[in-house]
């Protein structure tokens, strides 16, 4: 059956007008290179923009960072009053008070601090947790880096696959249908697509496992050596979390999987066919 499939494929390829085939292969090769470049640029963008967003004060307009009340230290709550510097956007600490949250609440009532849009008493638990995730701390930078790198791995694999597709199409354009190089490139393309589809849903899971493990370790660390440093709030765009990039959950992702599987089968048939062709050449 495989021999027939190989012969049929070869006949089909021979039937296609050479000039049309060459043209199509060259165009597809170009498209693949462009697609690979775009995908690679996306990965590079993610690799650079996300960590930068965590360390760059981009939007002070929602008064985040105005007041911070540390939790976990009942007698030593730090209260910070800060405001953005209009020149460079960096936060400036105006005042540091050693008081607990009740005292802060009283002070806020006594004084008209309208510039402070929120206090720890007005925030829900979820809001506090959400804002704490954006603290400029080494832990958060680590988390951002882990998420970014894990998201980038499948994307870079896809970019490599597209480059392989380009090389394969170049081989076809040159008339090297069953040569080992062409088939290898096609197989690499298919494998990359399959790896992309398989790895994409696994990476968030892996990321969660790593981050939870890191969080547990940091929790143990904090319990043993309670931190006494002051945390500054550095806001980042709310919708910039890597969690928003859910992969392999849509129909298009299913189609990509189907495409990769089909290509894998074709590549396998072509590989077998090229072996048969080589064997056939040794029969006198």
């Amino acid at each position, binding site marked *: 059956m495989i021999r027939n499939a190989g012969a049929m494929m070869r006949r089909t390829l021979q039937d296609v007008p050479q000039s049309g085939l060459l043209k199509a292969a060259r165009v597809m090769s170009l498209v693949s290179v462009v697609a690979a470049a775009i995908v690679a640029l996306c990965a590079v963008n993610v690799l650079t923009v996300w960590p930068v967003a965590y360390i760059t004060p981009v939007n002070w307009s929602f008064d985040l960072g105005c007041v911070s009340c540390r939790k976990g230290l009942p007698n030593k709550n730090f209260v910070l009053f800060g405001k953005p510097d209009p020149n460079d956007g960096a936060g400036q600490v105006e005042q540091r008070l050693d008081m607990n949250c009740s005292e802060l609440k009283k002070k806020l009532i006594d004084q008209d601090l309208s510039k402070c849009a929120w206090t720890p008493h007005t925030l829900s638990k979820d809001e506090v947790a959400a804002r704490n995730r954006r603290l400029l701390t080494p832990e958060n930078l680590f988390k951002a880096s882990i998420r970014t790198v894990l998201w980038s791995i499948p994307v870079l694999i896809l970019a490599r696959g597209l480059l392989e597709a380009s090389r394969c199409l170049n081989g076809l354009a040159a008339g090297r249908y069953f040569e080992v190089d062409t088939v290898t490139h096609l197989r690499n393309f298919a494998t990359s697509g399959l790896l992309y589809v398989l790895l994409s849903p696994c990476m968030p899971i892996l990321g969660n496992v790593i981050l939870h493990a890191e969080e547990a370790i940091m929790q143990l660390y904090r319990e043993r050596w309670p931190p006494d440093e002051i945390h500054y709030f550095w806001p980042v765009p709310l919708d910039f979390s890597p969690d928003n990039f859910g992969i392999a959950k849509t129909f298009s992702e299913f189609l990509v999987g189907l495409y990769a599987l089909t290509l894998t089968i074709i590549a396998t048939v072509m590989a077998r066919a090229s072996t048969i062709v080589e*064997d056939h050449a*040794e*029969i*006198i």
Partner: protein
Amino acid sequence: MRIRVALNVMMAERNVKSKDLAAFLGITEANLSLLKQGKVKGVRFETLEGICEYLNCEPGDILRLEKRSEG
């Protein structure tokens, strides 16, 4: 592989030149040389028929099964 090609012997016995046999079979001398050395993966019935016809022999005279060495 235990199949041995005895084409060399048959050609020598009949004093047939490689060039003439290759031309009769429609294959190159290089391929005939590979066939004589047994360095091919198979022989077409068509080729075998041509060889037998040219050398006036049977397929069994050209192809022999080597016996297994004991021990």
